[in-house]
């Protein structure tokens, strides 16, 4: 379980998060949505303590500020929006980086670490390419490799910043399905910043709508993804449709410019 209370983050004089409060239950998928500059990435950065913040964050009851780097990395695995992928690193070397917090400070990886990596690589169907250099992989494959590194951390919480932004529509669906499967298998808590509102509604248990560094709405996807709520933050051209299967689809109509952007 993760909770944040009166969380405030500043970039110089710019207020990126303005005293927000929230709770993510264990095993839940919280989708963080909002327009550009709303504070989605900042929220993930603060929870993983990559940014300085005011307020309180607790992870499984422990204050995040009291945790050492290694302890935190055993609790939270963070996948940034644009991970830095060393082109000359192999898939297995890259996934092994996920074990950093489990390997003693000046020690080498153990057989157990290698077993975990092998298992994750197999689970994500990367086995045949485990010796391949990252520079020789496609966007969809790299997405799985990055997810594999995060899963190798064996952390109960997974933070994903726009995990599918570089993928085509089919690959996006594949990637999110995979994340959802693994989440259910391993009872992971997932927080993901996600631009695509339709996908956010399909996969997240709950949505947190940020706007201007504040919580604009929170609740079940059907409660947040409404014309009225979205119009206030994404513009009047945004419309929510319901498909035959009951899914929500968010579209933007043409000719709706003029909405004041933050």
């Amino acid at each position, binding site marked *: 379980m993760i909770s944040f209370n009166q969380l405030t983050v500043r970039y110089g004089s710019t207020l990126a998060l303005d005293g927000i409060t929230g709770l993510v239950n264990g095993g839940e998928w919280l989708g963080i949505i909002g327009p550009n500059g709303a504070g989605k990435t900042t929220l993930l950065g603060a929870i993983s303590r*990559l940014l300085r913040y005011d307020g309180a964050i607790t992870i499984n009851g422990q204050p995040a500020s009291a945790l050492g780097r290694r302890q935190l990395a055993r609790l939270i695995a963070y996948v940034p929006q644009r991970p830095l992928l060393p082109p000359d690193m192999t898939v297995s070397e890259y996934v092994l980086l996920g074990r950093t917090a489990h390997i003693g400070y000046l020690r080498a990886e153990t057989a157990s670490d290698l077993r975990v990596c092998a298992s994750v690589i197999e689970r994500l169907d990367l086995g045949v390419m485990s010796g391949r250099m990252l520079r020789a992989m496609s966007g969809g494959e790299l997405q799985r490799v990055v997810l594999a590194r995060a899963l190798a951390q064996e952390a109960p919480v997974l933070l994903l910043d726009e995990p599918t932004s570089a993928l085509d529509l089919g690959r996006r669906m594949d990637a999110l399905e995979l994340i959802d499967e693994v989440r259910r298998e391993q009872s992971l808590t997932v927080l993901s910043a996600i631009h695509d509102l339709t996908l956010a509604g399909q996969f997240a248990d709950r949505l947190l709508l940020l706007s201007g560094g504040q919580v604009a709405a929170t609740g079940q996807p059907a409660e947040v993804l409404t014309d009225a709520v979205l119009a206030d933050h994404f513009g009047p051209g945004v419309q929510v449709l319901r498909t035959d299967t009951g899914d929500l689809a968010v579209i933007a109509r043409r000719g709706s410019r003029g909405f004041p952007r933050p």
Partner: protein
Amino acid sequence: MLLVAVVTGVAVGPAGLSPAQVIDAIGAGLPWHPHTGLSALDVKIVWEIRLPRVVLGILVGSMLAGGGAAYQGVFRNPLADPYLLGVAAGAGLGATIVVVSGGNPALTPPAAFAGAVCAVALTYLLGAHAGRGTESPGMSGGTSSILLAGIAVAAILTAIQTYLQQQHTQTLAYVYAWILGGLSAATWSDVWLILPYLLVAALVLLAHRRLLDVLRVGESEATSLGVNVARLRLTVVIAATLGVAAAVAVSGLIGFVGIIVPHAVRLIAGPSYRVLLPVSMVGGAAFLVLADVVARTAQAPDEVPIGVITAMIGAPFFLFVLRSRRARQDLT
């Protein structure tokens, strides 16, 4: 390669000893040695002149290359070399102060060592202070600040050194020769003097090579993976600085070893610091010993400054590395 370099380094010299005589001379210096027909002078040439020179070349070369690889890893900058944070300027100023003040020449190595260590400490303090406020928890954040502080500190110290040299032109040749670097005055006492620093530095750097690999994904991601980047950087910089400062104190400022050897190893053995760091140390040792052989034979009986040899090999090689890297990027 190191073995070839060592054999060549010990076997080649103006005394005209054959390889068999050199082996006999080495044996003659050991306890309970068999009797050889060599003169005491021949044994002394090998034991007191050639061997310390080769051993010092191994130590200095391995430290410069290992320090360079470690700096490149910790600053994630392929152009980093062991003199990046002001080691060269600080050592040069320390040595110059001793020379121009007419101090005992035996004080030159400790003064160079102290100058190098103080310069890096000043760089780190200034860089960390300038970068304060930009960093994130657990991260140093001040990479660029530290590198820029290194440039500023080196510029200031070099300016002071130049001023002192200009005010004492009678010592210019001596200071200049020291700056060019060399192993011609190597003694066993130099070896014993720097050995503890180099051993500790090498062990610390090698112990952190796995974490340098983690840093290849960037500071932010390394932090999220559980690395205390600030502590890692400080530890590596302290170890590399102590080792390189000790090496520079007895050999002067030998350039290019610390930058070209790690790059050459990268081309051959790949970029992982697990391999790169130890292989660079071995490669640096071999390279410097062989460069020293060229330095003392190319213009015999005079010696060419070893810094000239390493730079003359190093600069074209560096261009080759840049070219091949570009070619590889074009392919991918």
